[in-house]
């Protein structure tokens, strides 16, 4: 299912977590049939669009905090995709499905639950605000109050130097500023995998990750799922954490693929 078919108004969601939470809780949507990759990309597009409209047409790069939020999100969503991917595997899927969901999925559930609580707390605040609409109080000083004197205690000038040093200390977190490319386009990996399979019939996904960063790996995985969705490849994994084998789809197996998908 493509994003367009879902008729999701992305602007109506606060962020990818909000969207995912809605999808997860919405019983009638079968996650296995959702084009999660499409949703992620659409959301990134949406963020880019927001950035463009806020900063003018010349600046359309994602802000760094956006990037970090999305990078983390991609890693988390890959856990969800992992679950989803298992539904697309043909042979081993039944066995895999019985296994404990792994840590990453657990983390995703935890994060979604934390976000859910935040939303409920926000809803509580909203209703509170409505109840309090008829409570007026003075903002600012009283009209005829006595003059105020608020003496400031003497301070050591060393405190100024210390404050400036705080401002001159770079943050600890590794800067992502060097990632000039920001998000590698999904299409880049789709093309790469296609050309790989033009030369041979299969490859191991891990072998292609090489020097890729975590975010790039996540995008590569999305590209892989996209190819699966487009029915161009078969994705196989003998056991959890075993190498993921990608095979060029041949005609004999496409019927098995179709039945596995609709199961």
């Amino acid at each position, binding site marked *: 299912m493509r994003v367009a078919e879902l008729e999701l108004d992305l602007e109506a969601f606060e962020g990818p977590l909000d969207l995912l939470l809605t999808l997860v*809780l919405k019983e009638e949507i079968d996650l296995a049939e959702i084009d999660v990759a499409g949703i992620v990309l659409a959301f990134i597009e949406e963020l880019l669009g927001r950035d463009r409209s806020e900063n003018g047409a010349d600046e359309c790069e994602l802000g760094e*905090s956006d990037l*970090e939020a999305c990078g983390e999100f991609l890693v988390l969503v890959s856990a969800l995709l992992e679950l989803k991917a298992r539904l697309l595997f043909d042979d081993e899927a039944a066995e895999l499905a019985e296994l404990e969901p792994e840590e990453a999925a657990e983390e995703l559930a935890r994060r979604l639950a934390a976000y859910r609580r935040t939303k409920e707390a*926000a809803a509580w605040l909203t209703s509170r605000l409505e109840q309090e609409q008829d409570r007026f109080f003075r903002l600012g000083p009283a009209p005829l109050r006595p003059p105020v004197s608020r003496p400031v205690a003497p301070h050591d000038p060393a405190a100024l130097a210390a404050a400036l040093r705080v401002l001159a200390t770079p943050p600890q977190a590794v800067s992502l500023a060097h990632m000039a490319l920001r998000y590698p386009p999904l299409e880049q990996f789709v093309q790469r995998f296609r050309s790989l399979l033009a030369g041979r019939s299969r490859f191991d996904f891990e072998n292609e990750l090489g020097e890729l960063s975590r975010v790039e790996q996540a995008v590569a995985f999305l590209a892989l799922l996209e190819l699966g969705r487009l029915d161009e490849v078969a994705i196989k994994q003998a056991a959890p954490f075993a190498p993921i084998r990608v095979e060029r789809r041949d005609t004999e197996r496409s019927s098995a693929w179709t039945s596995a998908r609709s199961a």
Partner: protein
Amino acid sequence: MDERPLRLITSSPLDALARTVEALLVVASAPLPLEDLAAAADDDVERVEAALRLVGERHSEGRSGIVLEHVAGGYAFRASREAAGACSRLFERPVQRSLSQAALETLAIVAYLGPCTRPEITRIRGVAAEATVANLLERGLIAEAGRDDAPGGAIRYRVTPLFERVFGLASLAELPRLDDFEGDAETIRERLHVVAAQRGA
């Protein structure tokens, strides 16, 4: 309605103290904690509490346009609710423009987890918090509360007394417990497990 409070205010020894409390509250810029009232009135806390009860009787809904309330960790006067219409013709509500969903979620995070940093808010909400935090700062609903201990630490934020006032909270302890919202963690986990198990079914 009986005239007891008024007579008390003019005849018993607590009257003068009650009038002093009224005077302090009518000129104060923010809710005054009991201790500040006692210090300014130069009297002891128990007597000031008794005086506050007198003031509260005198200034309550239906009796007066001025109403005593216990809010944001202190005592303050506000307008009676029946005068809300008249007030709205002359004054802006403290939070006139409605708060966006992003602003409310951010406020909830800062109120419950504060002091907390912008990266923490971003992590919980999954989207950049920059514009929202700037907006809440400008409205005075959150304020800076030092920096994270780490070198180059991020600025931490807390909710302000204005936040408590706007939401009519005597203190942050009046917020519902976060655990009371937790019912859904299980649902989410279950849904994820259902997805994982679907193939087997």
